[in-house]
């Protein structure tokens, strides 16, 4: 074998290792996170979160308060590498799309969790926000923060069967 090639391989092996680690661990973690999100979304289906700014007229409101949920998520090493390559050529960056999706759904779930713990039956005026968290060196993105907030409502007449609780 060509000694120069071997030297090159040794030089790049840490990067290759990190790429493989990122690809394998990142994919497994992401899949697990999505499975977990789906389970919790089903559990919270009876607690609606809507973007109306006023509750419907037939809801008898008995108390309210701000609820919020947030999460900071980041790409794995492999996806970050793939995204960096993609940015050169432009176009759709598939690596980021599931990241934003899982972050946003997680934020909404945490908001619902807080609402359920406080005793609220519904959330209105939900707003979603995204912000980038920079590293200390400023050059790279450490992560993205996804945040959801809204006004939790306590209702005198619980929503009951207004929404399907299973299926979908």
């Amino acid at each position: 074998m060509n000694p120069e090639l071997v030297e090159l391989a040794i030089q790049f092996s840490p990067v290759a290792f990190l790429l493989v680690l990122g690809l394998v661990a990142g994919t497994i973690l992401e899949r697990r996170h999505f499975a977990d999100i789906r389970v919790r979304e089903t559990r919270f289906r009876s607690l609606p979160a809507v973007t109306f700014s006023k509750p419907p007229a037939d809801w008898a409101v008995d108390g309210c308060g701000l609820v919020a949920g947030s999460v900071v998520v980041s790409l794995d090493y492999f996806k970050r590498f793939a995204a960096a390559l993609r940015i050169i050529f432009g176009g759709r960056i598939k690596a980021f799309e599931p990241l934003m999706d899982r972050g946003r759904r997680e934020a909404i779930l945490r908001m619902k969790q807080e609402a359920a713990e406080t005793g609220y039956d519904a959330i209105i005026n939900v707003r979603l926000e995204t912000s980038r968290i920079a590293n200390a060196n400023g050059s790279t993105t450490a992560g993205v923060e996804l945040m959801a907030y809204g006004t939790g409502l306590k209702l005198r007449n619980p929503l009951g069967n207004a929404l399907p609780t299973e299926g979908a």
Partner: protein
Amino acid sequence: MSEFGEKFTISNTENIPGRQVTEFYGIVTGSTVRAKHIGKDILAGLKNLVGGELKGYTELLGEARQEALRRMIAEAESMGANAVVNVRFSTSSIAQGAAELFAYGTAVRVE
């Protein structure tokens, strides 16, 4: 954000549902600027390899937002308000590794 108790209400809607606003006091704000702990930064750097949630940052930003809300509420209470409506949040990166968490709303008195 139930920690603020029953007597003080905050909401991001224009009115407090089911209650009547009797007096407006104007805008109230609360903000805090936070930088990340170097240890947390290193841990997050490692977590960055496999992706997913960076818990250290989530907690940091969550605490900072609570602090901003507390300051906003303190200002509203000093005006004599018992509620803040139309609360908005904003986050901005003002320097490398530092972020400002900002909360603002309208202080009101409700029945």
